[in-house]
């Protein structure tokens, strides 16, 4: 243990539960290739709480790596700086697909972002509270079953992806909203990404397996969760095509299936020379993030070629993040 002067011979990472399975896989590879090293400790705290710890300072008692399912925010970067964490290396390790799925016994939805938006928005297109009770109310071509969508809670990063990648897109089908976006970004966000709170959309915590099980038990419901869970549970679930595009590894990786977000790790440069194995660990991650890499086997979606190349460069040079690029 020890205070600021202590040392540590074990890598410590904190942060996102989405990145967790990939970080652990990398950790395992790292140990197998470097048998003398202790296994890194990968902690799930959620991206936000992880950022707080990561930015708390330099030293053995602070983590070396932050796993993030979203980009670091400006405020967080400032906090890091204030605590002496100035040189941060930002590495995008891949992409997380979010998928829309239903039970194998379900009616077989085919949706578009617009339909999803109309079904889930609190105030579709700013025209008053959403009154749709069944999917048929949203569009007569859809089955007449009650709207029921299990999805991430408002505190999670996946939820932000849902809003950004699907709802906003659906919202923008209305020209008035496009105008609004230009004029009043805040109003636009509120109208386009606020989800109804009358029980049609069910906040479902962090446990994606639970959503899978609940979907299996409720054949008329839809679920929004990590793509890898869909892959693993194809025997129980099927994907819901959006705009006619089915969710497959290929469509998600290329971004044709809407709903993919970048995954990052943040590394303290100051720790690189001090914590044994830290550099090797990062290299290990980079070695596995290709489409055939071990991370993809775990269900991560590889980032596009050029993104990988750029980040490999960062890993090699340990380029420091420029705070002015953050929002």
């Amino acid at each position, binding site marked *: 243990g020890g205070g600021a002067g202590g040392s540590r011979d074990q890598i410590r990472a904190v942060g996102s539960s989405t990145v967790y399975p990939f970080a652990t896989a990398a950790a395992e590879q790292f140990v197998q290739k470097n048998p003398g090293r202790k296994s890194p400790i990968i902690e799930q705290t959620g991206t936000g709480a992880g950022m707080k710890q990561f930015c708390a300072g330099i030293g053995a008692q602070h983590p070396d790596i932050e796993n993030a399912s979203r980009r670091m925010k400006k405020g967080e970067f400032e906090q890091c700086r204030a605590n002496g964490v100035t040189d941060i290396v930002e590495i995008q390790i891949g992409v997380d697909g979010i998928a829309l799925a239903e039970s194998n016994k379900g009616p077989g939805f085919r949706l578009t972002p617009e339909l999803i938006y109309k079904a889930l928005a609190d105030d579709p297109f700013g025209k008053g509270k959403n009154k749709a009770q069944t999917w048929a109310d949203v569009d007569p071509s859809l089955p007449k079953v009650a709207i029921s969508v299990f999805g991430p809670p408002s505190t999670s990063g996946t939820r932000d992806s849902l809003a950004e990648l699907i709802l906003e897109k659906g919202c923008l089908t209305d020209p008035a909203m496009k105008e609004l976006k230009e004029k009043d970004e805040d109003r636009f966000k509120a109208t386009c990404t606020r989800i109804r709170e009358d029980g049609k959309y069910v906040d479902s915590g962090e446990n994606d397996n639970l959503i899978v099980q609940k979907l299996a038990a409720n054949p008329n419901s839809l679920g929004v969760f*990590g793509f890898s869970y869909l892959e693993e549970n194809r025997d129980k679930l099927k994907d819901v095509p959006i705009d006619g595009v089915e969710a497959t590894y290929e469509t998600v990786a290329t971004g044709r299936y809407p709903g993919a977000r970048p995954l990052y790790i943040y590394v303290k440069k100051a720790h690189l020379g001090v914590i044994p194995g830290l550099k090797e660990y990062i290299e290990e991650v980079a070695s596995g993030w290709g489409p055939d890499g071990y991370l993809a086997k775990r269900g991560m979606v590889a980032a596009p070629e050029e993104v990988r190349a750029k980040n490999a460069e960062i890993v090699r040079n340990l380029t420091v993040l420029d705070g002015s690029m953050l929002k």
Partner: protein
Amino acid sequence: MTSPPPDETLTRRIPTDWKGQAMQRRIAARYRAERRFRLIGLASILLSAGFLAFLLVSMLGNGLSGFTRTEIAVKFDFPRAPMVVDPAMLEGGNADQVLAGANLPVVTAQAANAALGEGGDALISSNAWLTVRDAIRDDPSILQREAVLSLPASADIDLAAKSQGTAQAEAAYARLKQGGHVSRAINMPFLTASDATDPTQVGIWGAFKGSLLTMLVTLLLSFPVGVLAALYLEEYAPRNRWTDMIEVSINNLAAVPSIIFGLLGLAVFLNMMHLPRSAPLVGGLTMALMTMPVIVIAGRNAIKAVPPSIRDAALGIGASPVQVVFHHVLPLALPGIMTGTIIGMARALGETAPLLMIGMRAFIASPPGGVTDPATVLPVQIFLWSDEISKGFVEKTSAAIIVLLLFLLGMNSIAIYLRNKFEKRW
């Protein structure tokens, strides 16, 4: 001293007509009430126990298979394998180091392909080369000959063997079975290894040891402190505002959500005292704060139940208040204190939420060596596994629950033995 009783009503009633119609009816009704009451009691027990049995049965149903694993026999022809390892180099302490660079994964995959046909490497666990590595380390002489090793099957095949797999895997499994390659074995690594990312490689030992250490710290702190506090409050504390304050805050602590204890642990033990994160020490301290009020409350009730005449008797002989308490009250109250300890510790053992805050929700691949080493605990491990993507973790999760319940039974049976031993009626 005074006038005789006004026996108007009395004579009317003397003696009570026990055999009369009304009385018989009344007694019958009372007996019915008695039977009802008794039945309700029995039903309550059966319902509660039945619920537990149901949980247990479904856990066993899901989890027992987690204690076995499917193994596939693969023949290795080491002398001809594409690897260069000098057995002499394996003598020193760095055998693992040497073998890590020995291209074993490829060797293993090739051997599997050779033995099981093309695609055979997909049928064995992706970490199967570790088994090969261990075999070589244990007996370097096999490098000079051919050897047949039993490698763990891949998660898909393992599931198929337990008839939970996909159609594809079941077919592959059927083929393997025909070829006589597969066998079922006790999954020893599950009991001796720690967390891993591959369900065929995971083990419970790390979390088990973490729980053990955490509970030890919890017990060592909360039991004495809880008992002493209970004794102080019940036997010695003057009845004043200070005592009330202590009492209220203890009762209140029992109602504080466990997650808040996690926040406390984070703020005090980690940020203020700089104790190590993820450590059983901190987990134990946090849990001790949470368990103590339970022990205090149960302990106080038990102490209250000791008849005053026993205290009088001891005081009357000239026992000091401390002696009265430690010689008489405490032994008599011990069963009740044990009850508090049992349920408090049981709660601590099954608790997840506060540990999320102090860094125990983590991937920790080696068992802790002491209370300050990073560790996780059984319920957190269960929680983590339950959220794993791979379906191979489903049975492991249930198996871990079984282990946790066995742990609980072991822990409780000691306390229960003591409780029964001390139970006295007066």
